[in-house]
């Protein structure tokens, strides 16, 4: 009888060693220097921030490196801001809609190319053990992808989105390499549909629960304090000029807005958890698989409580929230590799930064 020898996969999780105290200082000094240099320093600030996060990310005892050149980032940034400023000037101030329209059309036409550049930028500027990642996707494939899938989603009213999502991940991951080794992605559209159903069920349950609690609270307050409220109302009516009747309405609406914001950030983390797990579980470097062990509910909680902390600290806790989110996501991601010494390098490359800065400026999420 023949035994199939199963390779034993030993998963090692990523480790994040950054801490909020250290990052707070880097963040604060970055902002101060950016203000003092009228924005010029922002390119160096970006490199320093990324260097800090990459260098504190360890796998199997070795850390990652971020190698982008701040001068190139500055040039990319100036080009993007310049083009955007031109657009705004022509569109909003000079009312030369033909020129503004021309800039917009060129911008949209360049988009697939710029997104490819951004992907390539992120990968080639990341290295691990002095072996850089790289990207080999073709510009043509990006144009084909965006044209085909834009049409597909228009005609199917976005129902084909999960399929497009998987195809986009294939375009990105199947063309990504670590040195000479290739990444591969084996996700199926069916998995994504299943994720959406789960997200839909959980979100509905949550909204339902929140309204139940609010309703009960409201009813409770009414029963317990009905007399006091009656008295309060009477006193309100006796001095109508002094008390703004809109006050109570605005308190309620601020509260609802706050709940809405918490919900948005909870959902962002929650959705992020599902998709990160999915992508990680279907991705491998040659035969060495990645694994995502994030708990979507926990990540949702982290996202919601983070925004709470940011708002009530007037932004000062931002570094703490950033470190907290990264630490959780990285330490719940693992990788099973037999031999970390085996990867051969392809060398470092340089290229344009415009795509990266465009993605950065417009806060686009290309999911890397």
């Amino acid at each position: 009888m023949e035994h199939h020898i199963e390779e034993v996969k030993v998963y090692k999780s990523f480790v994040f060693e950054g801490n909020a105290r250290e990052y707070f200082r880097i963040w604060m000094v970055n902002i101060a220097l950016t203000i003092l240099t009228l924005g010029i320093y922002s390119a160096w600030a970006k490199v320093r921030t990324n260097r800090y996060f990459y260098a504190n990310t360890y796998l199997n005892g070795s850390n990652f490196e971020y190698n982008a050149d701040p001068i190139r980032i500055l040039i990319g940034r100036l080009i993007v801001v310049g083009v955007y400023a031109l657009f705004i000037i022509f569109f909003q101030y000079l009312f030369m809609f033909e020129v503004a329209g021309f800039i917009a059309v060129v911008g949209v036409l360049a988009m697939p190319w710029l997104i490819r550049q951004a992907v390539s930028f992120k990968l080639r500027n990341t290295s691990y053990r002095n072996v850089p990642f790289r990207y080999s996707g073709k510009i043509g494939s990006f144009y084909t992808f965006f044209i085909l899938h834009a049409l597909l989603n228009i005609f199917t009213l976005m129902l084909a989105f999960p399929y497009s999502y998987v195809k986009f991940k294939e375009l990105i991951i199947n063309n990504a390499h670590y040195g000479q080794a290739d990444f591969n992605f084996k996700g199926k559209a069916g998995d994504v549909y299943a994720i959406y159903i789960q997200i839909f069920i959980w979100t509905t349950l949550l909204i339902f629960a929140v309204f139940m609690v609010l309703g009960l609270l409201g009813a409770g307050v009414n029963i317990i304090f009905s007399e006091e409220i009656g008295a309060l109302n009477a006193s309100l009516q006796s001095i109508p000029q002094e008390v703004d009747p809109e006050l109570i309405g605005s308190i309620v609406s601020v509260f609802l807005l706050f709940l809405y914001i918490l919900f948005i950030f909870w959902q962002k983390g929650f959705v992020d958890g599902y998709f990160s797990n999915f992508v990680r579980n279907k991705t491998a470097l040659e035969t060495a698989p990645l694994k995502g062990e994030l708990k979507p509910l926990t990540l949702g909680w982290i996202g919601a409580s983070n925004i709470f902390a940011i708002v009530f600290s007037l932004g000062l806790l931002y570094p703490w929230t950033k470190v907290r989110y990264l630490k959780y996501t990285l330490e719940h991601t693992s990788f099973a590799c037999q031999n970390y010494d085996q990867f051969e390098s392809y060398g470092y490359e340089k290229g344009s930064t415009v795509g990266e800065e465009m993605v950065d400026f417009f806060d686009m999420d290309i999911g890397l």
Partner: protein
Amino acid sequence: MLINAVLYDGQTSKEHEVTIDFTFGRRVKIASCNIDVALEDVVIESRLGNTPRVMEFPNGVRCKSRENDKIDQLLHDFGLRKSKTHKIESSLVLTLGSVLLTVGFIWFLLTGGANYSANFLASILPQSTLNEVSRITISQLEEHYLKPSKLSQGQKEVIQAHFDSITKGEKQYYKLHFRSSPEMGANAFALPSGDIFLTDQLVALSRDKEFRDILGVLAHEKGHVVEKHSLRMAIKTGVAGVVIGYMTGDISVIATTIPTILVNSSYSRAFEHEADEHAVKELQKVGVSTKYVAHLFEVLSKAHEKSDSNSSFMKMTASHPLTSERIAYFYSYAH
């Protein structure tokens, strides 16, 4: 000086434990890998927290060491240039200074800075641009909310004469438009171009035959134009959006909704007060008591209370909060 490090040759991901020897002859030697190069050929990256220090050697070789303090000492001993950034980051005073600078800067942007930049923008923005923006707004309003006025010619003439008395001889262009608007109700508003709109519904609430209360409202609206309130509002909203966006790292929902709410609620009161001050001055100049407009505001605020449950549009456009303080303010100048 000896530094413990790991070496990556740049060909493979293999890791080598090495000891780097920085000699007094300004040579850098790694015996186990046969490396012997000049100190000037090694690039030592700036320190970043306590992350492993990267040292770049010729031919793509990189070393990383956790002995940050020793390396700082070494840079000092060899008189090599050291990046100042880590020094700033590790100094408590300078970090606190950065916090103060940032908070001060944001505060400045939201208060004085917005005024300066609004004035600056207003001075470089040609009036034709403001007019164009106003024209677009007007055509939107005309299309959806405004109908021709049903006031009599006599009423119009009296109000127009009041309007001329406070705008005549001004360099700025001013024009009064009479309109009827059941949707907006009793209202008056000014656009940066100097176009001021008055609704029949507001005139209907007037309790003065000579419309001296309406004159007060017009003087108030003129104040908005003089102080360039709409431009300042737009700039403040923009600045608040950028600040919040940067802080939360999110330019989406938050950055677009919160600043608008913040700015509208907290600043509009300040702007209304400025316009009220302006109105008082104008009324004093033409010798009309402020009691008429104070009285109109009282009537208006009562009408507002009644209507506010059924008209959501009123609430949305209630940028003129008629507080008792404002009414008292006008009464305090009446004699």
